[in-house]
């Protein structure tokens, strides 16, 4: 993308007013989407995102600038903007770049951009019609097949000059079932850090369509979830969003370093039930949230966040590390060059426990089984979170009973992770796009079936 010598000149310019750290992030990304609705392909889009973000630090002050003009003049102007905003000093560091390669543990067999639209459409249709043919009550289906080819280059004043290429593919089907004038939605949207070989090896498009339709059908015949405080069993896979919201965001340096997390200053303390071990691991081969290096060029790693209830690690970017006096953990991420990097999650999950799934359900006299979760959000300062239940069932006398719709769960992160008192052993992950100050980034959430002994269930 940008030659090493030019990067070196740009970084020297950026650091010319006394920065103690300077960094250049360049990207060239091709987003390709194919969309279907009303049983027809109605939109195909290509979008190229390309530009450069420059960042300089001096102590705890960070200045960033970004541009779409990647000519030498444009880059120098961008570097000047950063240098000028930092202050009026003189250069204090010498910058000499050496190229480094960190390797790639996420092999891609079929690069999506090398494949014509027709082949992608065939995959999407396979999934689409599996959903629309599932039942006569399926009144509408929409489907998207998206692939992203995200090439990044990172150079910094520590001498680093490196590149990485992140290829991701995702299929999303939404089915709507209509019964007696009521409409309910089901979704299934698996993705991987893979190319189109994903559909030959790990994802069956028809199963994706059928799963979305099945969920919509179940929910269309469901009554409203009753409101109240009760035990809740949360299913594996995307159920892990509970840890992501209730705890994960509050372990990011972006809130911890500013003292704005309920877990600030609690390393080594028991913050969760001893049954909870939680891990953020960006190194899992071909997983949706995986990265070889983070967006500051730090190699990704497996971070044990909580071990048997004890807080072991935060997720830390370079600036967070400065404030916390701790090393970065390979957690710096940004949606694009236009966003300022901060600490984020990758693949975050609660590890398998020793409880049996049947024992978890059998332990509940009256409660909710949240088989599939929707999204949620959290305020890391107070720990108050919410998330919605996509597919829920009442549990009565230890048995799964009727489906219920419209449930949401609310609580406080630090209290809920103490109440995760049963952990099953069918750990799986689900894919999401996580939004925060550095934009929207792909993340996996995961867990086995767990029980929360009591939580507020919103319903009507």
């Amino acid at each position, binding site marked *: 993308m940008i030659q090493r010598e030019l990067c070196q000149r740009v970084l020297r310019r950026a650091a010319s007013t006394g920065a103690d750290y300077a960094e250049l992030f360049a990207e*060239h990304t091709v*987003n390709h989407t194919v969309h279907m*609705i*009303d049983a*027809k*392909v*109605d*939109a*195909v*889009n*290509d*979008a190229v995102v*390309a*530009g450069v973000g420059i960042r300089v630090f001096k102590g*705890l*002050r*960070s*200045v960033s*600038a*970004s*541009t*779409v003009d*990647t000519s030498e003049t444009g880059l120098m102007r*961008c570097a000047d903007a*950063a240098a*000028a*905003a930092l202050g009026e000093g003189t250069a204090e560091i010498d910058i000499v770049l050496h190229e480094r390669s960190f390797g790639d543990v996420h092999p891609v067999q079929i690069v999506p951009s090398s494949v014509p*639209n*027709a082949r992608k459409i065939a995959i999407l249709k396979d999934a689409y019609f599996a959903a629309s043919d599932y039942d006569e009550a399926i*009144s509408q289906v*929409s489907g998207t097949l998206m692939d992203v080819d995200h090439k990044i280059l990172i150079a910094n004043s520590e001498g680093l000059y490196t590149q990485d290429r992140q290829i991701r593919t995702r299929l999303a089907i939404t089915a*709507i079932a209509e019964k007696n004038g009521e*409409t*309910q*939605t089901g979704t299934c949207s698996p993705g991987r850090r893979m190319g189109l070989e994903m559909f030959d090896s790990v994802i069956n498009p028809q199963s994706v369509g059928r799963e979305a339709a099945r969920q919509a059908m179940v929910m269309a015949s469901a009554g409203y979830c009753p*409101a*109240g*405080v009760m035990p809740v069993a949360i299913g594996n896979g995307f159920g892990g969003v509970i840890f992501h919201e209730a705890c994960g965001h509050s372990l990011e340096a972006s809130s911890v370093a*500013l*003292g*704005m997390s309920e877990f600030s200053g609690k390393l080594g303390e028991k913050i969760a039930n001893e049954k909870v071990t939680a891990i953020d691991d960006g190194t899992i081969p071909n997983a949706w949230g995986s990265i070889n290096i983070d967006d500051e060029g730090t190699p990704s790693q497996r971070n044990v966040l909580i071990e048997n209830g004890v807080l072991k690690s935060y997720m830390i970017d370079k600036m967070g590390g400065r404030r916390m006096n701790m090393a970065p953990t390979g957690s710096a991420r940004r949606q694009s060059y*236009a966003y*300022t990097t901060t600490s984020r999650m990758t693949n975050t999950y609660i590890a398998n426990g020793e409880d049996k799934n049947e024992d978890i359900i059998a332990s509940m006299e009256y409660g909710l089984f949240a088989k599939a979760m*929707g*999204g949620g*959000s959290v*305020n890391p*300062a*107070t720990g*108050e*979170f*919410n*998330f*919605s239940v996509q597919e829920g069932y009442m549990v009565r006398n230890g048995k799964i009973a009727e489906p219920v719709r*419209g449930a*949401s769960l609310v609580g406080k992160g630090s209290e809920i992770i103490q109440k995760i008192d049963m952990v099953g052993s069918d750990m799986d992950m689900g894919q999401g796009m996580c939004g925060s100050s550095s934009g929207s980034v792909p993340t996996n959430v995961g867990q086995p079936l767990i029980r929360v002994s009591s939580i*507020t269930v*919103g*319903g*009507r």
Partner: protein
Amino acid sequence: MKYNEFKQLVIAEAQRLGLSDYELYYSESSSTSASVFQHAIKDFDSSVGGGVSFRCLKDGHMGYASTEDLSAEEAARIVRAALDNAAVLETDEQEFLGEGGKSYQPITQKEITLPSAEALTKKALEAQEALYAADPLVIDGSATELVAMQSTLAIANSRGLDLFHENKAVVLFSAAVVSDGKELNDSYEIAFGALEELDLEKTARTAVSDAKNQLGADVAPTGAYPVVFAPKAMTGLLQAFSGVFSAENARKGLSRLKDREGERIAAEVFTLIDDPFYAESPAQMPFDAEGTPSFTKAVIEQGEFKTLLHNLKSAAAMGKQSTGNASKGSYSAPVGVSPFTLRVAPGTMSEEELLQKAGNGVYIDFLGGLHAGADPISGDFSLQSGGFMIENGKKTRAVKSFTVAGNFYELLQGVTAVADNVKFISFGSPTAFASPSVLVEGLSLAGK
């Protein structure tokens, strides 16, 4: 290269390939922002971004491609990619390129001058000090972000459309964190306007008092109550459900409002207006994403459903005129539909009178998880909430960590009164919202 040069290359390529119907949509934005932590600048950012979306009609199908890389190679690539993408489309809907209008209503917002980096930084620091000065309970973690931005939009097509619009705005974001030693809480307030006109103290006071009022909040009791949605909460609901007014969604079975024009869908006290020229908006727009002149229209008037929101395609398919609501979520997105400023018309009561009418119930001024807990297709919602109990017609103790559940379509029917305290709230482009406090009967709360 500059956009105009790039544009000429794209047009030359389109003509070389024999295209007769094509359009370029160019969006450029530059912004500078300063954010403050404790008493010093934490981050300063200046960015220049922008991109071009090209679309063309080929055998009746509209293909799209976009880029941020304004190079000669990309100029040729996006034309070819848009053609390739058009070739595989299957829809039989008629597609349109806009021809614009004879005239455009002038915007009334005052033009502002963007501040220098120094002035912006100085004001951000002052705004942060205003937060600390507002109350002794304000603690570190409170943050100020001040952003100055300029955005440019240009649409040009083979039908002779050639439109340009520029907008400048300064936005102050004040986030207060308060603690009484036992408990911590936060809230934020947003203000717009020329730098010298921003009322730092008022913005700080609002953020701080909202955060402070929730200290010591208890969990609300479970049950069914009359609920007063404060402006912040009501605009949140409107944001989550504004898609139900889109003709595109209605046609696809994603809204229940298809063919319902003329029907009573809300209580008589409820009027909902889409207003591209809303006086307080920092982003008034004289035309939509297809170049159609924009205008103010009632969506719901005294309970009666007046119109879905249309772009050219949905209007033609449903035998209507475009309502000038074509929009793009970002420059690279295909043309869709959205409102400009969707606002609930004020009633005649004060908020105090509204609370009197509510009698005993709950006042909600915070809703969380709108992207997840609100289903825009069924209208169902179940949302994290915060606010106050209403006892004997007055706001009393603070409550939080409860949920309010209902259905948006039923809620519209269940409005019993609307106050006069309209507040404008923008969550970012393309749509903003404004609403006074609204009283709704009988919603379910889950708390303790």
